[in-house]
């Protein structure tokens, strides 16, 4: 991850652990973020070997002392990527990111996440696939699955994840 010529800069972060494998960092605007990797083995109940390695990625603002809208922050990409890299310590690790659309900004968040991912120098070490799921009320939500490219079960995991979208989006 480290590049001596162009070192990656980002926010200092700390791993607390716990049930949800929580990390924390504070931005230059004093906004406190929590990043969690929640156990989500139920997603791959047909792939027992991967169940204990499957986690849902969550990022939330937990303190915003100024109470203002969260501004664009060019340190976010590297910080979030560093946390994800820190967490991906096992080749079977699978991370799922579900994009919340409840406030109608889901697509923007999804694009931002994609941008962070695709422009990061470490992106080549990972495989990422996206799905869109159409809710009954026609509000889509988006989900991504990230695996290491050396994940021995990567193809099966991705296939099952894409199959989820196919099945879910069938006419109801």
């Amino acid at each position, binding site marked *: *991850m*480290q590049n001596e010529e162009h*070192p*990656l*800069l*980002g*926010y*200092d*972060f*700390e791993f*607390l652990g*716990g049930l949800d494998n*929580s990390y*924390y*960092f*504070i*931005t*230059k605007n004093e906004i*406190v973020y*929590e990043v*969690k990797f*929640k156990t*989500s083995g*139920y*997603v791959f109940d047909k792939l027992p070997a991967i169940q204990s390695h499957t986690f*849902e990625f*969550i990022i*939330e*603002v*937990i*303190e915003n002392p100024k109470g203002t809208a969260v501004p664009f922050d060019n*340190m976010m990409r*590297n*910080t979030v990527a*560093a946390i994800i890299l820190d967490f991906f310590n096992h080749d079977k690790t699978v991370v*799922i990111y*579900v994009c*919340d659309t*409840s406030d109608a900004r889901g697509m923007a968040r999804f694009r931002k996440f994609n941008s962070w991912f695709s422009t990061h120098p470490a992106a080549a070490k990972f495989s990422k696939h996206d799905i869109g*799921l159409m*809710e009954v009320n026609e509000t889509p*939500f988006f*989900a991504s699955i990230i695996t290491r490219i050396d994940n021995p079960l990567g193809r099966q995991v991705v296939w099952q994840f894409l*199959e*989820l*979208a*196919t*099945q*879910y989006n*069938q006419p*109801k």
Partner: protein
Amino acid sequence: METKINAEQSSLEAQELAKKLIASKKKAHEEAKYAMQNPQVQEVVQRLKKRNAERGTPIIRL
């Protein structure tokens, strides 16, 4: 007939799974509102604030 039943079953399973994922996401969003009430989280945040203050910036080389 059997194929159709299997397809419907798979679709139902997918819907349940998708609902679980959405519910999990919403639960996490709710939990985040109370995260700062957790003493362990408060300690981590205080440590980070202290380190950032000593360094003069929250930014580090990753």
